[in-house]
């Protein structure tokens, strides 16, 4: 890298991600992005200007030392890059695929001011995949056991990250997962075409090899309560996720053919209804599927509908593409795959046939008014604009709210008005030694923010246990 001047580096243009052809991929569940070959990674890494005050790092919720790993890639030292990256980030092959980089590292990249930012996400994915394919970098010495026991509740991004960090520090970590497979939203929510399940499995495998004990089918709040766990563990990290889906509260929402996105995606992903053959768990494969919402979950659902064979897969969103909270790449990919965007449209009612099967979604048109509390322009209905959108499946992807299962068995733990757990800056709840992070604290947020919480909480738990 030292061989290139800044000017020469500035002349390299951003490398694009090789991807499956849109028409073809919209009918299969294989991964859309194929990953950088080494040559492209080398070229892309050379675009990095190695800023002294690296803004990209400040944009990263887990504070990955981006210039360091990128410079190692540019030098062709992939093992070194992997070691550097994985020291900062427990799940790089996940975040390299699902992070909203444009709002984080790449959004802060200095090269983005006058052009295209360095493709940090693609490079992260490249290094993580390289490490997985080359048998990784486990020359780290086994940490000395501390004799402290930590329970991690929830096997999603926050829990997996925390477990990985805690075991590295020599603690005895047991992770409890409510479902039959660890991974949380990474296995039940995010589809195969965006995050292949074998990648999550290999990350989980890495953790168990490092010494994390994983117990599936344990529902904290039912199988064990927090007070029971406190007797057996020196510290607890709660990362059980947001849980309950929010519905629209419109007439007809209980007709057959209306799904919460959580159910639709769980059937397809975790329960493997995406296999054309031999799946035991059914899912209604609509011909015309309307997905309500504009976030990543909505994009996942609508692109899944397309792949399950829908003639028409539609996003129904009450604002415009600008206001969509989804990752830019997902909206772009969905468009390429032929997803129909019904923008400035708000659902009023689910219309059913005489047997109470969905046959349409009664909607009204919206226009944008003044900005609301979120800073986004508030949509207002256009009088007399009602119409019926023909569809046979409706998927509601408008968010989730706190699951009360765990917190109900621990009344002394402080919650906010929405039922989310309150924590201090270090992530500790109102109960000493009990920490929490991810969606159960934040409400529905992103994988990477949950991972950041897991990392921070692990540090705080380590400090707490050393006191």
């Amino acid at each position, binding site marked *: 890298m030292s061989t290139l001047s800044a000017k020469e580096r500035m002349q390299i243009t951003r490398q694009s991600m090789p991807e499956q052809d849109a028409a073809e991929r919209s009918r299969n569940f294989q991964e859309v992005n194929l990953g950088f070959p080494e040559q492209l990674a080398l070229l892309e890494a050379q675009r990095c200007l190695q800023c002294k005050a690296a803004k990209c790092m400040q944009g990263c919720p887990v504070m990955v030392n981006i210039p360091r790993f990128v410079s190692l890639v540019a030098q062709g030292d992939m093992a070194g890059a992997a070691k550097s990256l994985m020291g900062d980030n427990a799940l790089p092959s996940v975040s390299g695929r699902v992070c909203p980089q444009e709002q984080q590292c790449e959004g802060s990249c200095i090269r983005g001011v006058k052009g295209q930012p360095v493709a940090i996400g693609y490079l992260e994915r490249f290094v993580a995949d390289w490490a997985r394919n080359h048998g990784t970098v486990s020359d780290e010495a086994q940490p000395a056991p501390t004799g402290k026991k930590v329970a991690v509740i929830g096997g999603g991004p926050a829990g997996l990250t925390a477990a990985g960090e805690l075991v590295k520090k020599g603690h005895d970590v047991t992770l409890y997962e409510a479902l039959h497979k660890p991974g949380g939203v990474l296995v039940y929510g995010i589809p195969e075409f965006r995050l292949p399940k074998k990648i999550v499995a290999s990350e989980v495998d890495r953790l168990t090899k490092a010494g994390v004990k994983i117990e599936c089918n344990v529902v904290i709040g039912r199988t064990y309560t927090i007070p029971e766990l406190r007797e057996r563990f020196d510290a607890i990290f709660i990362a059980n996720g947001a849980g309950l889906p929010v519905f629209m509260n419109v007439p007809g929402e209980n007709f057959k053919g209306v799904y919460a996105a959580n159910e639709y995606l769980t059937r397809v992903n975790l329960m493997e209804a995406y296999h054309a053959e031999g799946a035991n768990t059914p899912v209604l494969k609509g011909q015309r599927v309307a997905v309500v919402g504009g976030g990543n979950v909505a994009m996942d659902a609508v692109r899944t509908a397309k792949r399950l064979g829908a003639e028409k897969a539609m996003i129904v969103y009450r604002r415009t593409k600008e206001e969509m909270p989804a990752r830019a790449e997902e909206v772009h990919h969905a468009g390429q795959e032929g997803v129909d965007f019904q923008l400035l449209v708000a659902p009023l009612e689910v219309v059913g046939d005489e047997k109470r099967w969905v046959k349409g979604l009664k909607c009204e048109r919206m226009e944008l008014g003044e900005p609301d509390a979120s800073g986004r322009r508030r949509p207002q209905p256009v009088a007399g604009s009602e119409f019926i959108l023909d569809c046979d499946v409706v998927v509601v992807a408008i968010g989730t709210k706190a*699951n009360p299962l765990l917190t109900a068995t621990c009344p002394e733990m402080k919650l906010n008005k929405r039922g989310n757990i309150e924590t201090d800056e270090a992530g500790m709840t109102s109960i000493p030694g009990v920490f929490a992070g991810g969606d159960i604290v934040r409400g529905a947020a992103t994988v990477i923010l949950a991972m950041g919480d897991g990392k921070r909480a692990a540090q705080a738990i380590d400090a707490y246990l050393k006191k």
Partner: protein
Amino acid sequence: MHKILAKKQLSPNVTRLDVLAPRIAEIKQPGQFVIVRAQEGGERIPLTIADADPAKGTIALVIQAVGKSTRELVALEVCDAIRDVSGPLGHPTELIASGRALCIGGGVGTAVVHPIAKALHAKGVQVTSVIGGRAKEWVIFEDDLQKCGDVIVCTDDGSHGRKGFVTDAAKEVLTAGGIDIVYAVGPVPMMRAVANLTRPFGVHTVVSLNPVMVDGTGMCGGCRVEVGGETKFACVDGPEFDGHKVDFDLLADRLQTYREFEQRANACADGQCRIRR
């Protein structure tokens, strides 16, 4: 893995499996259920815990083999294992502390009524059970319920007990008076009929609902039911609700969602379809 320690055929299509699950056996309460997955790739099936033996560490699962997944489950033998058992899930039954209870069970629902009757009896509540089935061989848990109080058996064809529906016998018990609460579990039409029967008597009626369910932890929202005009999730808010407030039409309707898929899966399992799925 959860080893099967005992297996018993209770009726022509109902099987009891006693499965090793020590933690659940230790803490389960009446009204709670588990979600099981027979093997890798299998469906998640919600099943009521019909009984438990904490000393042996077993729970009793009573399975009506109606679909492909439940038929695979009952095909397992003693010493085989069930891959996943998660629970105990759902709220425990609200048991009255004293007085008289009428427990009504229809078909496989009788297995759900059993732990409730057993717990009531242990508290000193006077229990009358009314249970029913198509014919003698379809009546289950009769002996177990005898240990908890009086039992009235009804069969459609009169081959055992009295001829007629459980609601006929229940009506007589209610008319005689003194019943403080009714617990009813069975097919949706039966629970609806019981709720309609008890309403004019003003007797609180608890029913246990069995909607389509995936995760059982509130995450998917598939098990939503309407109670008193509000949407509830049976897995975390129930599975037991006030029978006078449940929208049984909606429950019955939503249970039809996958009927076509189930029929096809059954036909394939029977070798009646030529295209292997």
